[in-house]
């Protein structure tokens, strides 16, 4: 079982892209740091390069520079135990050139975030302690109860999922962001370019949808989740570019080829599992052991599934459609009743025998996800993790609990 070509290609592209971004910024190009839950499409349409905060945090973490970045946050007088992941980029400015991953994140001219939680706005406001950095904030509004299954309605009838008021607010804020960006960068916004970006994204996510459906239907499962994650996520950071769209198509083609050839992660697949919540995918050896010992395979990842169901928006007004994409994106993953119903639907379409649910204690509504799955007759193993202190999660305990759970499913 080799790594997906799409995954390797995505990772190579990411390095090249970041190097060219650094070069452009060194030449005086203005660039933005954006939180993942805030719209990035307007930047793309205006040709303003950007880095997604959570992507950079993942690089800082992978290069073992998280602890030092958090120390830097504390040194500047802010808490180092709040929004730890969101704050890594802020702290990583203090890393010396040698210690900084990938040569370091250049100083952004602009930061953009949605006011989620009590402190995200403050994390981004902290960037403006350097007065040359501009900050734009989107309001965070609360989920409403949709009048049907959101994964069917969201593409065309998004106002029935999110409500016209929420969308109107975010659309107005999109227009304010455009003014802010035009003022700050001297560039001009053109609606036709945003429309093109939105078209490319719908195409990209339709490919992800086909990939998700292929994997859901395939028996045995053809690809590892740890492989599809980079092959989906890197193109997601490049949403709205031709490269992103083409990468999603290449992934679809590659997976289709594997399914046609009868490829299998595990030839003796006996148990199909779904992982809900923050993944522990870096420890691949644990998953291999479950495959070997029990023929147990994880067949689903939220990254591919939310790309498939959560992002596509068709409509004539690109500013509104963009608002409809972002206004409730995190609700779909966490807020009841939207999230629990969706996990049940995904568990069913993927034919899973059991769900491992990593419950971070700062995630709202987690208990209702477990409850909904159990009510649908799906066995759930809950693993409790403290988000404030991930070190409290003992991986050998996790492996032990999972072995017992999987053995129980087999009987």
């Amino acid at each position: 079982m080799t790594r997906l070509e799409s995954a390797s290609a995505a990772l190579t592209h990411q390095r090249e892209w970041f190097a060219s971004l650094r070069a452009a910024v060194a030449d005086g190009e203005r660039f933005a740091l954006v939180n993942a839950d805030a719209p990035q499409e307007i930047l793309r349409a205006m040709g303003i390069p950007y880095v997604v905060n959570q992507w950079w945090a993942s690089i800082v973490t992978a290069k073992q520079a998280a602890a030092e970045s958090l120390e830097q946050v504390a040194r500047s007088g802010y808490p180092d135990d709040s929004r730890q992941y969101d704050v890594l980029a802020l702290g990583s400015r203090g890393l010396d050139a040698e210690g900084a991953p990938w040569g370091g994140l250049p100083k952004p001219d602009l930061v953009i975030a949605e006011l989620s939680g009590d402190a995200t706005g403050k994390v981004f406001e902290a960037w403006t302690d350097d007065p040359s950095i501009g900050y734009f904030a989107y309001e965070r509004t609360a989920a409403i109860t949709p009048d049907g299954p959101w994964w069917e309605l969201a593409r065309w009838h998004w106002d029935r999922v999110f409500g016209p008021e929420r969308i109107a607010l975010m659309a107005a804020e999109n227009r304010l962001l455009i003014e802010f960006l035009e003022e700050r960068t001297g560039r001009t916004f053109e609606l036709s370019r945003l429309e093109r970006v939105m078209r490319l994204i719908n195409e990209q996510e339709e490919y992800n949808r086909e990939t998700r459906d292929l994997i859901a239907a395939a028996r045995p499962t053809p690809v590892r989740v740890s492989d599809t994650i980079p092959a989906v996520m890197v193109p997601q950071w490049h949403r709205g570019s031709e490269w992103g769209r083409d990468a999603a198509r290449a992934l679809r083609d590659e997976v289709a080829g594997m399914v046609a050839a009868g490829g299998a992660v595990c030839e003796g697949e006996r148990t199909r599992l779904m992982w809900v919540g923050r993944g522990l995918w870096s420890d691949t050896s644990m998953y291999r052991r479950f495959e070997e010992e029990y023929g147990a395979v994880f067949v689903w990842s939220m990254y591919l599934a939310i790309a498939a169901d959560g992002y596509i928006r068709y409509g004539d007004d690109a500013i509104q459609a963009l608002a409809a994409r972002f206004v409730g994106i995190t609700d779909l993953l966490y807020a009841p009743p939207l999230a629990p119903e969706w996990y049940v639907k995904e568990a069913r379409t993927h034919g899973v025998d059991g769900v491992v649910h990593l419950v971070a204690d700062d995630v709202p509504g987690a208990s209702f996800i477990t409850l909904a799955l159990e009510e649908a007759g799906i066995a759930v193993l809950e693993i409790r993790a403290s988000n404030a202190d991930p070190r409290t999660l003992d991986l050998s305990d996790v492996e032990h609990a999972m072995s017992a759970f999987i053995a129980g499913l087999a009987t």
Partner: protein
Amino acid sequence: MTSELERAARDVRSAVAIVAASGRPVIGIVGRDVPAVLVAASGAHPYRIAPGDELTDEADAVMGRAVDRAASRVLAAVMAGSLDFLRGILVSRDCEASVRLFYTLQELHRRGAIAPPVHLVDQVHQNRESTLQYNVAQLATMWEMVEAWASGGISTRSIEAARNELADVRGELERRRSWRRSGRLSGTAALHGYRVAAALPPTDAARLLRDAGSEADDAGFPVFLTGSAPLGDEVYRAIEGAGARVVGEDHDWGDPILTDRLPARIARDRDSLLRELATARLAGAPAAASSTMAARAKATREAIAASGARALLSVVRPHDEAPAWDWRHQREQADVAAAMVRGEAADDLEQVVAVVETLRAAS
């Protein structure tokens, strides 16, 4: 000696339950962002829910443990059935814990596990026309919800009457605030006053406040309190028991209540009226969870000056994230001695007292 006001403040819930038993609809409110005047105008009594004493084990299992205890304690009270006398609960999105509380209550209600229905009054907080329009639309929905729960119509005249009653209570609270600033009222007594005013019917609250009177002059060391909104009065008692005086605070069970203006005149059309209500809150004192660090630091500095505090004390409970972010700029701009007690230490009153001692020594 325990005053009548203090006794009332300690047990507002029984008094409100009696109101409900008399047949008057009572609607619960969570947070400072729900305009009580609209509820009162429907004929229902607006009762702002304070964290109760119920054990939170069950609530923690449902909502998760990493949430400000103020919200878990409200959830525990609802799950225990202690608030079944309510026609409904209006939750504001004043902080993340309230939003989480709302989702949990809504889901529990949908499942038939709790009696009162819930509605989120989703007021957001930036100084923008688009924000204001969203808030107005939310208040219009709240208006209809309240009318349905109270089985009573809201009219210009009923709003005017409700405003006048609430204005009487405000008048009493303002008098007490001036006493407090001139050393004639403790922070603990002020807190009791705010709690009674937010929970009891206005005529009862106004009478209790009127009768309470001022206290003897006290030269206690004047401290301004920031950080988490207190669950009960324990933190105030501890600070004042150590010879200090809490002369002002910026949490939403204290002085900031008085900065959200009641509508000056009642506009005839609903839209203008709701606009005025929404604007009143946006113009009020900034709250930790919904404002910029810059706005908070400026407000803290001004409030310290207005209250005559000689020290700034921040007491921040576990899982209350915003105040710790505000702290750097608050401290830098305060111009008085400043100290923060955070996390588990904030639950240990001896540690809070020890910090008060160091502040006194430093100022």
